[in-house]
């Protein structure tokens, strides 16, 4: 169990004192122990990474430190003094500031108004002063931010930057960063890391919550790994390897790359898209004359910069978005603008990008979400009613098969972690061997183990004969899983490459507007 409080004596190499010590923290939610007697400490001038799978308890632990949750057991010490943090106000007063994974920003307000809202900045602060300080920090980070822009107008990446700027404005003693890079570009990440190093030198204690191993190895000094709510290991980063970390996180060895069997002979065409034109939410041309075919037993990867029309394409095929002109045929049948249920009944599964918006219903429970495709027909339906026995048996089976971790079948889906949500979706959309599966960003935001699981599943489905349309921004993933790769740019198809002839450079060129015909010839140097 935890030891008594001790303030770290200054070591020879650095004068790191312990700012925060969390001892024996336990937090229970109905049916699950999110934090199980966890000890965690934060030292000044140090980046302490909190690593774990989705749902391991990292955000919960830091929410407790920030006053958003109250622990059921355990104590928190601040510079050796026991404290009770009852709300974010208390945390802020101590100098603990948090940048959240799910952004805490008022959409309707401007950036300046959101920042003015933060109590750490005092009650009275002139608009000019706020704008000046925002620009100051943004410039240091190399980010271009207009303080008067309204949040709902901004991209997800910009919003993530603002979340970080918000935390930095008040020079805190402890800075908690929760998944700060999930939406940042490579450039943005590097700038952020630079800033974190600077803050470290100033003596801040920084907590870096993530499930990304590369980042942990790059930026942290110490690593605490959580697994299923328990603290599994604490180690210095210098002593850690990627494989070790993955093993601690998951409890077994994890495959980072998968090899697929060579594709069988081309089966019959399952999905035929002909000269498709689809409009986006702002009536812009999102899909602009795209044609391609996906065959039985193959994975067609769709690569492209975000906003190239992938989302609209996927929604149009699934029947969720109106097709302006063009044709979609599934197994020979013209299903353009057909009712989504009809399309689903023809054997089409859809894993959408926003899982809790277009895939699962957050307020319904696991049972109800699992039978969403089939509740209206037997065997789920027995006359006028639902066959509860069958449903329960069916759900238990799926939960087992797909390793979904949940306390109870009647848990509302909104409480599940990202990895489990995805498994739930997959269970529903693939367990009956779909003829066509549209998977949009299926591993986005998932931890190592869940990612491995999803990729293995996609390959298995392909081997069993499903046609899969895989949309992803992860080029490694696309290249790992796809038999052929299509690239979209501004709604137009730049071309389709076979897996053998595809390289990151060629795909990259196509993603930025070079059509396949105009690509420079492949040389032996290409990997």
């Amino acid at each position, binding site marked *: 169990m935890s030891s008594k409080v001790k303030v770290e004596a200054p070591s020879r190499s650095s004068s790191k004192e312990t700012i925060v010590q969390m001892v024996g923290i336990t937090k229970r939610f109905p049916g699950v122990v999110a934090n199980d007697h966890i000890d965690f400490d934060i030292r000044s001038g140090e980046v302490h990474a909190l690593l774990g799978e989705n749902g391991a308890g990292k955000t919960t632990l830091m929410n407790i430190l920030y006053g958003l949750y109250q622990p059921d057991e355990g104590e928190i010490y601040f510079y050796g003094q026991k404290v009770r943090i009852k*709300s974010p106000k208390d945390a802020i007063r101590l100098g603990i500031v948090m940048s959240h994974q799910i952004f*805490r920003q*008022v959409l309707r*307000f401007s950036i300046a108004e959101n920042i*003015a*809202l933060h109590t750490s900045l005092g009650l*009275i602060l002139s608009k000019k002063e706020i704008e000046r300080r925002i620009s100051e920090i943004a410039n240091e980070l190399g980010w271009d931010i207009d303080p008067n822009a309204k949040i709902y107008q901004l991209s997800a990446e910009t919003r993530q930057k603002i979340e970080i700027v918000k935390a930095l404005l008040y020079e805190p003693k402890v800075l908690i960063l929760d998944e700060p890079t999930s939406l940042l570009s490579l450039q943005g990440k590097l700038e952020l890391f630079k800033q974190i190093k600077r803050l470290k030198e100033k003596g801040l204690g920084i907590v870096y919550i993530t499930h990304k191993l590369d980042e942990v190895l790059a930026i942290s000094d110490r690593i605490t790994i959580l697994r299923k709510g328990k603290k599994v290991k604490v180690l210095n980063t210098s002593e850690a390897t990627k494989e070790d970390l993955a093993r601690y996180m998951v409890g077994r060895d994890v495959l980072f790359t998968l090899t697929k069997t060579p594709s069988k002979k081309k089966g019959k065409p399952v999905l035929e898209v002909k000269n498709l034109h689809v409009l986006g939410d702002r009536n812009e041309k999102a899909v602009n004359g795209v044609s391609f075919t996906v065959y039985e037993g193959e994975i067609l990867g769709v690569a492209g910069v975000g906003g190239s029309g992938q989302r609209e394409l996927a929604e149009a095929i699934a029947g969720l978005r109106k097709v302006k002109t063009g044709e979609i045929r599934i197994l020979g049948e013209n299903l353009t603008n057909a009712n989504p249920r009809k399309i689903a009944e023809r054997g089409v599964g859809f894993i959408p990008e926003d899982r809790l918006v277009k895939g699962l219903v957050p307020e319904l429970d696991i049972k109800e979400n699992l039978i969403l495709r089939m509740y209206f027909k037997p065997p789920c339906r027995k006359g006028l009613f639902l066959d509860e026995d069958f449903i329960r048996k069916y759900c238990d089976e799926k939960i087992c098969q797909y390793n979904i971790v949940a306390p109870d079948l009647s848990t509302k889906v909104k409480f599940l972690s990202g990895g489990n949500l995805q498994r739930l979706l997959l269970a529903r959309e693939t367990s009956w061997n779909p003829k066509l599966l549209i998977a949009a960003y299926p591993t986005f935001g998932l931890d190592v183990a869940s990612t491995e699981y999803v990729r293995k599943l996609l390959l298995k489905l392909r081997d069993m004969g499903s046609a899969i349309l895989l949309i992803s921004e992860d080029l490694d993933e696309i290249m790992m899983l796809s038999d052929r790769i299509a690239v979209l740019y501004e709604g137009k198809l730049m071309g389709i490459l076979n897996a053998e002839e595809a390289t990151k450079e060629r795909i990259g060129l196509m993603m930025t507007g070079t059509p396949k015909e105009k690509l420079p010839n492949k040389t032996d140097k290409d990997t």
Partner: protein
Amino acid sequence: MSRKVLRTLKSRKSILAIVAVVVIALIYSSAPTALGISTSTIDFYLNLTMIMATPLILPTLGEIIAELSGVLNLGLEGIMASGAAAGVVVAYTTQNAWLGLLASIFIGMCLALFFDIAVITFGADQIPTGLGLFFFGLGLSGVIGDPYAHKVLKYRFDKTPIPVLKDIPLIGKFLFSHDCLVYITLILVVFFYFLIYKTKIGLVIRAVGEDPGAADAAGHNVFLVRFICVIIGGALAGMGGGYLSLAFSPGWTAGMSAGRGWIAICLTIFSLWNPAYALIGGWLFGGIFATVFSLQGMGVPPRILLMLPYLLTLVVLALILIVTKGMKGAPSALGIPYSRE
């Protein structure tokens, strides 16, 4: 015309404003025609409009504050009724109209407190609780007020026209020839406008109603902010009721609030949660009430006349929903209890 002017003209607010102005102009033009054109009649009409507007503007201001913080209080009618009754009782007993007014405000705050405890402390569903408050307030008003029914109140707010200002044509009679409470109401409109849009307190209130999670993470006490806003709302609604019984009628009659609390709820939406528009909306509906009054005995069937304000309420609400396609502008967290876990 320049594109910017065209865009402004086509915007939703402009359409609503133009419609409102046209309707007001029609009302204003019809009333004098019915009675014969004369400036004194127009003056009288404007004066009456402001008087009729005041008991609508006050509860609307209160509900705007409450709803901006995210709480939907449907009990306004009940609070107004109780405020009216309490005002009369205390005014009689203490022989002082101002004390009566304080009583109206106080009972409004008490009723709001009950509502707060149910809805914020215990997270009860705001709509049925509001309706319950309405019934309770209405019944309470009868219990308190019955002994004083139909008695004319001596201790009341008399008209106190402001010297010099009262002689300005049109505006003089419209704004400056009233009792104190009307002046206070106008001041309150300006006050709340500045509070909501120009101060940090207003920013916090709006944040709490828009995204309580963000306000919480920024360090504000969402529950306390909502608690206080609802009480302010109750105070203002109570004051509106007090105005009815201490200045308007004066005296207490059963059912004297006549659905004004409900009209105020419609006005809250109509005003897009903005005190300035609440004032304009108040004048619009005040004008209808004034028309109803003026046309009495002119041959229009009385029951049709009585129906007009409420008919207008329906028309306005329908227009709003059609033009803005749903309650655009509503605080996003309106009606949703907040919890962290």
